[in-house]
């Protein structure tokens, strides 16, 4: 931990060696992150993570370009850091259009084209969805925005370091990144801010004018070095990681598919190599998780929240509520083994079979009852 212990210089201190050393380390990391997405190091702005990057990008661009218009386009399945930022802008008088994805969770370029207006100033769409892994065609979406002179922001927290993100071939103006999504430390992220064309932002954090005035605040050298190293490793291992995780994901799916009534949520093919979101019909997600306590899975149905609402992402795909309640999101990674995947398959099958034995809906399905014709007492 060289930048936590011993080397205590502030990278913004230009008057002594300690500061220079820290600055050197920060600039090396900046280059490592830029290299991962084929950008210029001067296009990288450090932030505290993808949430801050999304806030800075969307609010910063919306505020700076508001004379062009106060209309923003995003989608219904964005991360909350984008949706809540857009809600805030609505409170400030901006108008936001929320695009619906197709059944696979993908935003079709035609849908974007149809939503753009003369007063649209910012478009914000994610590269890949965090719950279902569906990947948008950023190159195509970027063409549309560039043609219309609209600032295009992409939340790429899920994709940078996992699949190719190339600022040379993709016409993206602003791109959010997060270190911990690529095995780096938590609490550090970055925003790519295009120089050609030059994108301007109204800063959200005022102070000493760090990061070319876009994000003031002393840089956390040790965090930044961690993100740089994670980016370097990710660039080197990306092809290998992608191949490995895709094989594990397929293995997981093949294992689950031996059960009846298993549904994949979101596009299976146009999907991140490491994410699998499935619904096990007639079994409720949270109860399934209770049987899988040694696995780190999450339920699409946000049952642990006070609202008990099923996932807004799955609903936006047009999924029936009961399948949304029955969903689980699995992710595999660089350090996942075949044995772990096989263990997960066994555990999931046991749990699904057990819970189906407990499920009145499974009984009815076995008896040939069409659940859609039953008069339910909604509560």
């Amino acid at each position, binding site marked *: 931990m060289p930048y936590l212990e011993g080397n205590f210089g502030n990278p913004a201190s230009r008057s002594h060696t300690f500061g220079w050393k820290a600055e050197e380390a920060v600039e090396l990391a900046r280059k490592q992150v830029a290299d991962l997405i084929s950008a210029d190091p001067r296009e990288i702005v450090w932030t505290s993570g993808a949430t801050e990057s999304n806030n800075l990008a969307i609010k910063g661009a919306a505020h700076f370009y508001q004379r062009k218009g106060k209309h923003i386009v995003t989608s219904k399945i964005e991360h909350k850091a984008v949706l809540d930022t857009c809600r805030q802008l609505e409170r400030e008088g901006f108008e936001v259009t929320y695009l619906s994805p197709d059944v696979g969770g993908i935003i079709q370029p035609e849908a974007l084209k149809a939503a753009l207006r003369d007063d649209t100033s910012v478009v914000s769409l994610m590269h890949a969805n965090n719950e279902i892994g569906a990947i948008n065609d950023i190159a195509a979406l970027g063409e549309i925005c560039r043609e219309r002179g609209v600032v295009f922001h992409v939340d790429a927290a899920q994709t940078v370091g996992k699949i190719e993100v190339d600022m040379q071939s993709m016409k993206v103006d602003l791109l959010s990144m997060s270190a911990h999504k690529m095995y780096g430390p938590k609490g550090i992220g970055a925003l790519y801010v295009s120089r050609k064309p030059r994108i301007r932002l109204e800063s959200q954090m005022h102070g000493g004018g760090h990061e070319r005035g876009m994000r003031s605040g002393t840089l956390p050298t040790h965090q930044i070095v961690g993100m740089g190293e994670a980016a370097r490793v990710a660039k080197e291992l990306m092809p290998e990681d992608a191949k490995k995780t895709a094989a594990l994901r397929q293995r997981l799916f093949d294992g689950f598919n031996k059960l009846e009534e298993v549904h994949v949520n979101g596009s299976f093919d146009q999907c991140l190599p490491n994410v699998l979101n499935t619904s096990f019909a*007639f*079994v*409720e997600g*949270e*109860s399934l998780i*209770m049987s899988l306590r040694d696995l780190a899975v999450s339920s699409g*149905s946000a*049952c*642990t*929240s*006070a609202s*008990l609402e*099923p996932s807004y992402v799955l609903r936006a795909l047009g999924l*029936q*509520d*009961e399948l949304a*309640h029955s969903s689980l999101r699995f992710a595999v990674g660089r350090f996942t083994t075949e044995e772990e995947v096989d263990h997960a398959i066994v555990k999931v099958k046991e749990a699904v079979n057990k819970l189906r*034995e*407990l*499920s*009145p*809906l*499974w*009984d009815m399905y076995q008896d040939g009852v069409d*659940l859609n014709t039953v008069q*339910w*007492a*909604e*509560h």
Partner: protein
Amino acid sequence: MAYSEKVLDHYENPRNVGRLDTDSANVGTGMVGAPACGDVMRLQIQVSDDGVIEEAKFKTYGCGSAIASSSLLTEWVKGKTLDQASEIKNTDIAEELALPPVKIHCSVLAEDAIKAAIDDLKSKQ
């Protein structure tokens, strides 16, 4: 979410899982909830000629707390008269299982289920 030991016990070892003959004159069936809401309970009771619940079965689609609430309910109603069973309150279930506030609706659903089963039985007799 942390589950109480009692919830975990009922979830791991649910009591009285199964189904009784819906068409039988001394069986009452209560089915409450909806798949779209994330929980459905089916509670069935069978009464003897002198009006005592001699058998209870359940199946539940829902979270662990919903499963535990209905499992506990089947234990409680056995040996009770219909009047005694109809006095079971959701608050008793919530207290016994130490349900957190966000899971209180599971115990409400269980109370609805026993009431519905009793109503069904009475409508048959």
